[in-house]
């Protein structure tokens, strides 16, 4: 049986390049994986990890963008603060408005006060600190940070006054009218409260104080209930060698509450007009004293870069001759962007989100461990088959690829399942929440706690891509170790494996 020359093939035939991805690897990966249902636990693990990372971060991001939106309603683009207490707004304002990128400015004055609810005992004539006339129930006293604003200018700078909740019976009001309670309204209220005006007595419109809605409800005040504001200060004179304490007080009426998305602002602040706060409460003389402010809110052209404008305004304030003359030591003053104004709060929520991501990544590591355990088990179970495949001519890289592919299939299925269920859960979350509330009596998300009408969410595509890639990478690492073990098996020993 002499072979023909063609039949006599040399040992080293011109070899075809080894395939990068041999068919048998994929062929077996899928069959090995689906042979036992337990092998799919890695798929479930990855899916749960991906699902959690998508859903929780989407809600968190929605929440954060809600918070940022809320903050944006009350925070001007830029805020000039740490203004010397005797500086004149007019003088500062002129410098700021000279900048081409500054669209509008609004003065703000901050002060702190206690407020006292008036009951049916009628109009208070002032603060009587040790009088039994005033109800001493703790709930009738509360502390609040007053912000005096110029309503017509404030609307040019922020959306704060757009957030005022007008009672249904009210027609639309101008910004100024929000801070004026008409006399007739007070008349009606007094009649209802049982101390009507005397004959011939007439009341003109009275100044209003605007509370955040939560505080408004919590304090159980009503429009146009009368309140007394009280505070104190040390003007600098001495009595018997000690600084004299001067009390301050002013009666105001409760106006329509505001409801911004910035909970901290709503909880802690109350709005007055600058004139009422500065002149009537703090006792500045409208004509003789400087028009003091504590901050200037600044609106910047939308296309301008805040950091650049901020720097330029700071330079302009420092270079202004009038201010230089008035403050030879330097005017001071600090300009903050809207993010810097709320840095602590924004950082806190960002930190929380970052922490959440780390915690959820731990879920991912557990999923990776499941993938590892599944493949480790599979390699042990399939040791003899690995020997057989080697005898059939599988290279060790081919064996490696069987188990890498298995890991890959697990990861792809897990990712697909996780992304699909994750996105679906996010899109239908509010429906689901409404349903659980109606049927099961619990809410998935404490909407009331955050004063939200619905669960906010925001899906960032880049995050979804990152999660999916992360899951694939983590599974690849988890699959690598068992796959390498399989590839390094001695074929003869593997064949003898029971």
């Amino acid at each position, binding site marked *: 049986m002499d072979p023909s020359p063609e039949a006599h093939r*040399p040992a080293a035939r011109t070899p075809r390049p080894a395939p990068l991805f*041999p068919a*048998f690897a994929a*062929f077996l990966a899928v069959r090995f994986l689906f042979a036992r249902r337990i092998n799919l636990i890695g798929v479930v693990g990855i899916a749960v990890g991906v699902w959690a990372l998508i859903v929780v971060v989407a809600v968190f991001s929605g929440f954060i963008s809600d918070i940022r939106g809320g903050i944006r309603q009350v925070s001007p683009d830029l805020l000039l603060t740490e203004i010397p207490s005797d500086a004149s707004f007019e003088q500062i304002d002129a410098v700021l408005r000279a900048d081409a990128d500054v669209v509008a400015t609004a003065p703000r004055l901050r002060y702190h006060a206690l407020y006292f609810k008036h009951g049916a005992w009628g109009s208070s004539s002032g603060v009587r600190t040790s009088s039994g006339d005033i109800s001493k129930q703790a709930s009738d006293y509360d502390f609040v940070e007053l912000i005096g604003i110029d309503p017509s200018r404030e609307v040019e700078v922020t959306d704060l006054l757009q957030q005022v909740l007008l009672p249904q019976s009210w027609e639309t009001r101008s910004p100024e009218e929000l801070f004026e309670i008409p006399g007739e309204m007070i008349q009606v209220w007094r009649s209802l409260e049982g101390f009507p005006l005397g004959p011939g007595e007439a009341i003109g419109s009275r100044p209003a104080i605007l509370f955040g809605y939560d505080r408004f409800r919590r304090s159980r005040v009503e429009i146009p209930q009368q309140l007394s504001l009280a505070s104190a200060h040390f003007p600098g004179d001495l009595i018997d060698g000690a600084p004299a304490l001067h009390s301050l007080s002013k009666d105001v009426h409760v106006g329509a509450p505001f409801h911004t998305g910035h909970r901290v602002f709503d909880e802690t602040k109350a709005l007055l007009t600058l004139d009422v706060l500065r002149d009537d409460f703090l006792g500045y003389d409208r004509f003789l004293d400087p028009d003091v402010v504590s901050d200037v809110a600044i609106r910047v052209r939308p296309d301008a870069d805040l950091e650049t404008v901020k720097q330029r305004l700071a330079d302009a304030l420092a270079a202004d001759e009038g201010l230089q003359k008035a403050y030879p030591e330097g005017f001071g003053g600090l300009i903050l962007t809207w993010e810097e104004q709320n840095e602590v709060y924004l950082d806190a929520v960002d930190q929380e989100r970052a922490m959440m991501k780390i915690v959820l990544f731990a879920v991912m590591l557990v999923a990776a461990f499941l993938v590892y355990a599944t493949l480790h088990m599979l390699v042990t179970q399939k040791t003899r088959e690995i020997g057989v495949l080697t005898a059939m001519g599988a*290279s060790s890289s081919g064996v490696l690829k069987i188990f890498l592919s298995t890991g890959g299939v697990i990861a792809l299925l897990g990712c697909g399942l996780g992304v699909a269920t994750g996105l679906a859960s996010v899109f239908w979350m509010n429906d689901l929440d409404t349903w659980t509330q109606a049927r099961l009596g619990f809410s998935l998300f404490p909407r009331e706690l955050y004063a939200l009408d619905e669960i906010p969410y925001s899906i960032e595509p880049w995050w979804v891509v990152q999660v999916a890639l992360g899951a694939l990478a983590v599974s690849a690492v988890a699959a690598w170790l068992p796959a390498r073990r399989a590839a390094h098996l001695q074929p003869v020993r593997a064949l003898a494996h029971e």
Partner: protein
Amino acid sequence: MTTPLLEARSITKSFQLGRTEIPVLRGVDLTIGRGETVALLGTSGAGKSTLLHLLGLLDRPNDGSISFDDQRVDDLSTKERARLRHRRIGFVFQFYHLIPELDALRNVQLGALMDVGLWEWLGNRGAIKARAAALLEEVGLTDRARHRPAELSGGERQRVAIARALIAEPELILADEPTGNLDSETAEGILDLLFRINRERGIAFLLVTHDPALARRCDRIVRMRDGRVVDDGLATTAPATEGAAPPA
């Protein structure tokens, strides 16, 4: 004698067990010609399986050389040896060693997928499947194509294993006691199949066996004892019974 296909020269192999070295092959010379059938007889523990693994390039000898077509192959890289094994050598085992998850048809196909790329296979599935089906027909198992190994008898499994070895078109099949687990009637059928394949395709066989009757059907009989070849001669002249251990 026919042209040598495989030549083993002075092969030694020992295994390390703890500190002691166990010599298993102590200088084995063996030549297998193209298209030749060789029976390998020997007592249990003589080193037959070890030799088979070395000839099949699954393991490396400690010393000596193995050549295929006058080309040394024992010193090739693991990867090259894997390719050579796939192209030129088929294995048939006593315990069939089919992949339990795959049906007969897929087990046979698998034999052709070792060095085919995934995309190439996807574009070529029909052809490979048809070849596998044709081989199953050749071994007489057309109606068992969709059965998994667990649903097949021992003889049927061995036929599938033979078809699987054939699909890569090897020049040499190394069979380690292929009928060792079968009753004599079934074994006879398997052997008829092997010899038919040898005749029709010119594939050389090295058959490890304990059965002298089987050995006599081969062209040559090689006897081993204690890691050495003690007798190597044509089946017609050799005393077939001497030195052969009874089947386990």
